[in-house]
Structures are given as structure tokens and as C-alpha cells.
């Protein structure tokens, strides 16, 4: 009788632990993908920079066994570029968020005269 109440509670606690681990893993994958894509964007020039950065993020997430929740957002300014990657989090508990977003910013490779360095 007590077991009927107590065991689900215990399993729930264990599920919470698993969910935290899964979420941290997804966040790590998103961080890595964003960093990789930002590096690609920072080192490239031309019209298709955004799409190659996006592809880099997608490849990274696929290789890490994750799944993108939405298309990575690539933005390029004059000095810096930033990439936001959102990865799906497998949901073990119904009320937790099923996605995690990480953003990376990189300075764009460009010529800077010695005097301005």
C-alpha cells in the first residue's frame, strides 16, 4: 500500500535527474553548434555565408545525435557575427521546456590597419 504511493514518487525524482542530464546534453550540443557556425561565419565572406554557417550548425547537431528545433539564426554585423542555435530536448516530463537555445558571437575576420589595432 505504501509502496504504491512511494515508488512513483521515487521514480519521479529519478526522472527529474535524467531530464536534467538530457537537457544539459542538449544545451552542450547547442553551444558547440553555435560556436562552430559562428566560426564559419566569421571566417567566410560572400553571399552564402549565412547558409554555410547554418549548414555547419546542422552538421554539428546531426553528428552529435541531436535534433534542431528551428533553423539556426545567423546575423552578421560589421565587426561581429552571431549565431543562435535551438536544439530539441527529449521530454521525459510533460511540463518541462522541449527546446534549448544557445548563442555564440565571433569577431569577423577583416583587415584592420595597424594604426587601429
Amino acid at each position, binding site marked *: 500500500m505504501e509502496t504504491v504511493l512511494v515508488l512513483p514518487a521515487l521514480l519521479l525524482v529519478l526522472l527529474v535527474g535524467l531530464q536534467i542530464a538530457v537537457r544539459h546534453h542538449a544545451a552542450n550540443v547547442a553551444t558547440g553548434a553555435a560556436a562552430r557556425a559562428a566560426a564559419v561565419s566569421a571566417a567566410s565572406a560572400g553571399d552564402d555565408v549565412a547558409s554555410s554557417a547554418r549548414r555547419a550548425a546542422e552538421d554539428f547537431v546531426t553528428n552529435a545525435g541531436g535534433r534542431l528545433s528551428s533553423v539556426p539564426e545567423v546575423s552578421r554585423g560589421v565587426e561581429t557575427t552571431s549565431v543562435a542555435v535551438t536544439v530539441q530536448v527529449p521530454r521525459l516530463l510533460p511540463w518541462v521546456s522541449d527546446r534549448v537555445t544557445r548563442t555564440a558571437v565571433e569577431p569577423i575576420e577583416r583587415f584592420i590597419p*595597424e594604426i587601429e589595432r
Partner: protein
Amino acid sequence: MRPTTVDRGSATSEMVLVVPVAVLLVLFVALGGRAGESSTAVRHAADQGARAASMVSFDRMPETAERAVRDDLARSGHVCSDTSVAVTVDPSGRLVTVSVECTLDTGGLGPLGSTMGVLRGVSSETIDRYRADGVDPR
């Protein structure tokens, strides 16, 4: 299969033993996850610092690296406190090394809160010795 009188309450007393262990397990997972994520963030910050430093003149390297490291850590959110940044330039002037140290934020982790030490990230970047205008940056 009615429990005998001697067994009554045994599940409760077993829970008293098991629940703290289960909760510790969850806290440990949270600590491990946070430590892993934070150490990635610290290493990335060191990379950013080294890269930023490699792009400026020697005089401005320390402040530039420090700013880049702190900006990047702030961007990663949470992670750690008491950040210290050390910038060293190789005697040959070809390599700048940035090392970052900080203490992991263990708030909310209860009894495991005091177990974490210091996170470190070290990164080196090559300095372009000859720049476009032919001036040796030294």
C-alpha cells in the same frame, strides 16, 4: 497477502533511507551537467580572449582579452564567479596565451554546493607577425 503487523510502516522507513540518496543523485546530475556546461563556456571564453588579443597591438592585448573573456562569459549566462584572466605573450612574440580561471556557481545544489573547485580554460592563438603594412608589431 495482507502484510503482517510487523511489516507495517516498513516501506516508509525504507523511504527514509532511499529518498536522501535519490535526491543526492539528482543534485549530482545537476552539478555534473552544470560543471560540464560551464567548463565548455570557460574554454570558449579563453578561445575568444586569445583570438581577440591576437588581433590587436601588444599594448592592448591584456585589456582586449579580458574584455572579450568577460563578454563571452556574460553571454553564456550563469556559469561562474571570481573570474580572473591572465594574458601572456610568448618571448618570440608569435603566440598569445590566455588563461581563464573562475569558481563554479553552485547555488541551489544543497550539500553538494561546496564540493566544486575552480574551472580553468587555456587557449593560445598565433599572432600575425607581419602585418599588411609591413610593420613588425613589436
